[in-house]
């Protein structure tokens, strides 16, 4: 890489990371306003564990993300199998287009359409409507992650298993399932990250008292975000980085062996 390329790439990374660095630095700032630096402190981190509003939002964010991504993964995987094995081409075409729809649909449209649905059928807006909405927008990503793995799967392997005396059920569990597992994991992780970061759809489909972190941040943004949020995000971001590092280490290790 020559100098110009390095400078270019460097300024792109600076651009991408500048706000994150600012957030992290301000989580240690001994001042409530975002405008001034009054010295180093850890008090926002301590306060974090006594702020019920933030802890509540954290609880909802994580429980919704875990439940929604798990349920979406089950639904999406079954759907992908049904699409791949049991649909005629024209049917597949329609279903695939409908599957794409929520992916391509702007979040705001998905959000208000689900809100309208919940209100229309008198389904109370709250934890369960939020959970359901998250499952709805997660499912297509799981389907789209699992389907390519099914397409790559060599169908002779399944037939070989049958030929060697396995029942279809056993052949599926022992042969097909392990092969599409990477796709399922990808889908699960994708669903989880989408869910944990979602704002727009949650904003429209939640009820009073049930806030996730994004909604809380949005409601705080105008009057100024409390530094404890910065502290919490720094912790979450650090946790993600740590996780990535561990995963990366393990991948390079297995590659080396």
């Amino acid at each position, binding site marked *: 890489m020559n100098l110009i390329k390095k400078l270019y790439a460097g300024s792109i990374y600076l651009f991408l990371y500048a706000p994150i660095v600012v957030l992290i630095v301000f989580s240690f700032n001994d001042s409530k306003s975002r405008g001034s630096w009054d010295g180093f402190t850890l008090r926002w981190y301590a306060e974090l564990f006594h702020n019920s509003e933030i802890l509540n939002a954290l609880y909802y964010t994580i429980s919704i993300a875990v439940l929604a991504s798990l349920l979406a993964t089950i639904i999406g995987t079954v759907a992908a199998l049904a699409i791949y094995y049991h649909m005629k081409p024209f049917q597949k075409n329609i*279903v695939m287009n409908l599957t794409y729809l929520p992916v391509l649909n*702007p979040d705001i449209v998905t959000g208000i359409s689900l809100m309208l649905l919940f209100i229309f059928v008198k389904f109370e807006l709250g934890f369960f409507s939020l959970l359901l909405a998250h499952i709805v927008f997660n499912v297509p990503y799981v389907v789209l992650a699992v389907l390519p793995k099914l397409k790559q799967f060599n169908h002779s392997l399944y037939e070989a298993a049958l030929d060697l005396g396995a029942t279809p059920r056993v052949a599926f569990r022992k042969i097909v399932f392990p092969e599409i597992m990477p796709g399922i994991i990808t889908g699960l992780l994708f669903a989880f990250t989408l869910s944990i970061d979602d704002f727009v759809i949650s904003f429209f489909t939640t009820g009073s008292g049930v806030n996730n972190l994004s909604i809380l941040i949005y409601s705080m943004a105008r009057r100024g975000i409390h530094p404890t949020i910065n502290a919490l995000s720094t912790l979450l*971001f650090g946790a993600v980085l740590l996780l990535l590092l561990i995963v990366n280490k393990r991948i390079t290790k297995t590659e080396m062996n």
Partner: protein
Amino acid sequence: MGKKWLTYPYHIWMALFTVIPLALIVFFAFTSPTGEFTLTAMQRVVDPIYLGVFWHSIYLAGLSTILCFLIGYPMAMILVGTKLKYRSMLVLMIVIPMWMNFLLRTYAWMTLLERKGLINIILTSLHLPVVNILYTDYAVVLGMVYNFLPFMILPIYSVLMKMDKNLIEAAEDLGASRWQAFIKITFPLSLPGVYAGILMVFMPAVTTFVISRLLGGGQYTLIGNLIEEQFLAVGDWNFGSALSVFMLVLILLSLGFMSRYEKENEGGMFF
């Protein structure tokens, strides 16, 4: 495998959560608050005031998309050109910022852009003129570019990575200079990635209401803000739905225009 019934649950799922909700929006767009068929809401959408809002949204999102392309394409090329050892790390570093809450990152730009914010402190210490772009269109465009740039870089990067390097060598072998090889071979073949990138930047940019709310200040309304207001502040579901339908039609038209380039990669841009 003849278990056709296995397909029913997914059919029902999609009918319930994809088709019916969208149908409801269309229904509200063409009815009055009392439930009778009417075109009043749709007529209001084409009022010059609201068309102006549409235009403003498209203009800012389009500008952001072009900027993302101009900034992102060279970056994708640089990534492709780096040594294998560092490449996956550098690509990962493009994705990592997205792991921090999107609203918070946008909020952080407020801190950076303020009159007495970090950027102006640095500018002043270098004896340069200060910039005051917070709560203007410039800040909105900056926020869009910031948030969606990775969505431009990644699909272009993945297309460039998959491209047969022999093609560029063949072009150079046949007498094309580096620049000619880029214009005639690399760029045309990377277009699917560019289209995917444009789609993935333009769509969220044109419908956002968060970036404009945080960085743009109240007077700069985008179509997303208008729709949000109708549902959550004004309570006019019919007009809100009509605006959504009009926006969807515009998006579908542009999608249809691009879909012919998208045939080959069936959603492969995500994984």
